[in-house]
């Protein structure tokens, strides 16, 4: 039995995608793989029981629904934290360990997903480095690529985890840094005794959000082309200029959502003229019936929101790129990245070596 604990230093770094992708790829190779996420982030209720949203989705993707009760033990929401400060839960580490033992029984590999960063959970003695101790696994460090910070973060994590540190995987590596990461950076890390198992390149689809999710997140209403709610949006643009300038700008970006005022039919038509997946109209103005008809015919959903443009932009900005891996299409893409860009053999070998040692 091997346990791989996936940790990172920030949220939205792609831990869940890596966990589910890795689990599926390892299963493909004949391993019986389990999954656990002891500290949850977003609780949702399923059958009257609180489960982590990501964990729920992953358990479903891995057909582990029956084990869902054991996958997550604690949510460190502010509410819970204040409660815990008054009265700590009894023996949290033992509780996690017991669940882990149930999940791991008979399995070849357990993938354990750490909390949003590796300090989170410390209050309960369940931060990632404590988890590694409790569960006895090795730590795989996932870092979102950053020109200046990546090297220090990986070396720092190695120092922090010490013995149990397996190595690192980079996520969202821009195309222009591909060569650098594979050559100079990998060589340097090797010279420091750190194993790099690969780098996952930036993928717009993985960062995208569906029109439906975006509309829900904005508390908006889709007023046409409702059947296109599952289209994926990769970026946004704001239309606050004349028609000709808008056309020039909008042509530069594909698969985008355009945010503009409901009364700006010129900008709306310019958006429809260019590769646009959806229109968000702010200020609660309905578009002209002609624009509405055109959008319906072209299959471009229009989302009406009551917020002003600045607020909407802020909300959309945080929604794009902070998306979950909750779609089969995204999981397939993640698996493809793992197959093409990660050295699974090296990872398995390292895990095996440690287990043997």
């Amino acid at each position, binding site marked *: 039995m091997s346990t791989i604990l996936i940790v990172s230093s920030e949220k939205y770094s792609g831990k869940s995608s890596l966990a589910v992708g890795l689990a599926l790829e390892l299963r493909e190779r004949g391993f019986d793989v389990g999954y656990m996420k002891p500290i949850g982030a977003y609780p949702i209720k399923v059958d009257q029981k609180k489960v982590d949203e990501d964990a729920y989705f992953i358990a479903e993707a891995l057909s582990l629904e029956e084990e869902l009760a054991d996958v997550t033990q604690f949510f460190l929401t502010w509410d819970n934290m204040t409660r815990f400060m008054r009265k700590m839960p009894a023996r949290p580490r033992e509780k996690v360990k017991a669940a882990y033992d149930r999940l791991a029984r008979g399995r070849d590999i357990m993938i354990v997903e750490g909390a949003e960063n590796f300090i989170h959970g410390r209050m309960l003695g369940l931060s990632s480095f404590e988890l590694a101790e409790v569960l006895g696994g090795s730590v795989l460090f996932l870092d979102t690529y950053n020109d200046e910070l990546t090297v220090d973060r990986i070396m720092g994590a190695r120092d922090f985890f010490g013995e149990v540190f397996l190595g690192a995987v980079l996520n969202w590596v821009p195309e222009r840094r591909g060569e650098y990461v594979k050559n100079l950076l990998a060589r340097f890390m090797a010279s420091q005794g750190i194993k790099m198992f690969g780098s996952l390149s930036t993928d717009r689809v993985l960062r995208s959000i569906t029109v439906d999710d975006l509309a829900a997140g904005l508390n908006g209403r889709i007023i046409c082309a409702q059947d296109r709610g599952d289209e994926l949006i990769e970026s946004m643009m704001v239309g606050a200029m004349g*028609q000709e300038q808008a056309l020039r700008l909008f042509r530069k970006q594909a698969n985008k959502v355009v945010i503009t005022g409901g009364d700006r039919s010129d900008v709306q038509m310019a958006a429809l003229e260019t590769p646009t997946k959806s229109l968000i109209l702010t200020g609660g103005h309905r578009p002209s019936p*002609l624009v509405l*008809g055109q959008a319906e015919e072209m299959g471009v959903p229009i989302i009406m929101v009551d917020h002003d443009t600045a607020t909407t932009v802020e909300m959309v900005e945080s929604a794009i790129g902070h998306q979950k891996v909750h779609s089969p299409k995204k999981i397939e893409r993640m698996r493809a990245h793992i197959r093409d860009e990660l050295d699974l053999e090296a990872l398995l070998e390292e895990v095996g070596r440690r287990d043997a040692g």
Partner: protein
Amino acid sequence: MAGRSSRSNDRAVVSDNFFEPRSLAVIGASSHPEKVGFAVLANVIESGYQGEVFAVNPKAGVIQEIRCHPDVGSLPHPPDLAIVIVPANAVLETVTRCAGIGVRAGVVISAGFRETGIEGRRLENAVVKAARDGGMRLLGPNCLGIINTALPLNASFARRMPPRGSIGVLSQSGAICTSLIDWARAEGVGFSKLVSLGNGADLVESDFLDALADDTKTNVIAMYLEGVSNGERFFESVRRASRAKPVVFFKAGATTSGARAASSHTGSLAGSESSYEALCRQAPALRAYSVDELIELSLALATQPIPKGPSVALITNAGGPGIIASDACERAGLSLARIAGKTLDELKRFLPPAASLHNPIDLLGTADAKLYGLALETLLADPDVDAVMIILTPQAMTEVAGTADEILRIARGAEKPVVCSFMGADSVEAEVDRLQEAGIPNVAYPDKAMQILGRMYERRLQVMRPRPRAKRFPVDSKAVSSLFHGYVETGATTQLSPEDCREVLQAYGIPYSPLKVASDLAGAKRHAAEMGYPVVLKVMSRQVVHKTDVGGVVLDIRNQRRLASAYDDMISNVRRKMPAAKIDGVTVQKMVPQGRELILGVARDPQFGPLVMVGLGGIYVETFKDVAFRLVPMTPRDAASMLHELKAYRLLSGVRGEPPADIAAVEEVLLRVSQLAGEHPCLSEMDINPLIVYNAGDGCTCVDVRITLGG
């Protein structure tokens, strides 16, 4: 070929069924005078239509002395034209049944379609499909109808019929149609045909334009447009029509606010102003900048011969208006004719001694009708005079009616245009009507009258110019197609990499300076060594638009040591000034010698397709907006004339002893760019900035190029 023959079929349907129907059915005819179905039937009857008229109404027995048929199926034979005025939700069935019995043309006056939203649009699409499937063509829906004054037929719900005349009117606004008719009746202006296009769901402006081009009753085509449904086809139709007769149009929605109103009114994106301007030069067409100019210019073109030259003789009975008209004359690109020789002698003979014999010819306030007549006759006979303009101010001794009589007697049938400006309103109104009804245009203000003459002369210049063909260069179009295809396929970005931009230029034989992309200093050094110093280093970052402002450009780097320090300075400058910018790398370019800088570009207009732009580079383009546009395909004359159009042209041709620039090389680049844009519809934008132009014979070179692809 199929396209061409179906278009000539369309023209036949428009000319025969819509313009000259031998029989028609008013479907939805009503006995209630407040209903549109009543007004249309009444108009058909009152217009004196001689063809067979059917009325269809399931309930009414006899309406306006016409026995109603209960439905389309009970008509004795299919009418040439069906006028549909039933409620929107019954239009689909009506059109389907009409098509079913073999009706080939329908005017759908009913509203409640695209202009109402999603359901309306679906309904409109279904109606069009039913019509087309059944071999029927439609005008409308949501239109005023159609009028042919010669037939005569008023198949519209306009209150009255316009007088007979030779101006063919197409309008995308029904309301403009009704006001034009009203105005035409008041001013004595006549129309040949009037078509209200409505939503243009099936037949559009180009279809009727094609038919009006062939219509012998129409001498001038006047259009009120808010946008066009297919710019490239419209360009072709205007080009074709313009060979036969002047095409004048007024385009609403020229400003940002206007465009916004237009797109919300039409549900389509109006073409850019630049496209319409380019269309006027290339098709050619005359653009009116106000609705009155549309009418006044159309009327002048319809009734008067076109001036053969720019020399205007100006007759007036007051000094002030003469001066105003003289100013306007120069502004309109015309000149005041020089009065000399026989004409001068003649004028001296009958004009009072105090009168001004030189142009403007001031007959003085005492001028009577006879004096006006003599002056007009004399000036029309002068071979150096190409047009005559007559100003009349109603003074105590002025014989307004008599003068009008004289003008009518002399100017009617003259080979030179005569335009009047009877100033004022009350005391000249009756004579103005008389003049206009007899085909002598009158414009109340002398400057505007002169402007109309200037526009008429513009038509002359347009007709005089030869029509060269677009030039084609041997290029590697396939290489560019496959390069573009690669980008479109992956969908990753719409912007070509700088290296790929160069591939495109290479394939189209457009000269450029070498460029390489490097992700770090080592790469930059390698590239510089390969291409040879001196080089230019530029930062690559999507966020940095104005590179120079943040220290993102270093020119004239002469060796490796300088390159290294320039690289370090550049990266740290950009980081410091724009911390949010992501630096993708740097470009290394061969430093090129200085020359005159132009910018050149392609923009894809949503209606008219690719539009080629040229202007003087650097700060000039931003400050003075000194740019010229042409639609693709461009002819060699377009390339030459667009450079001429620039205010900065003299900087190219050489100022104060400076040698001229290689204008021929720039023209060739323009034509090659035009060919590139025309052959690759997925190229949506291209910027060459700068294009450095050397002295004549030394060519030019593109330094920075950006290409954006799009759908």
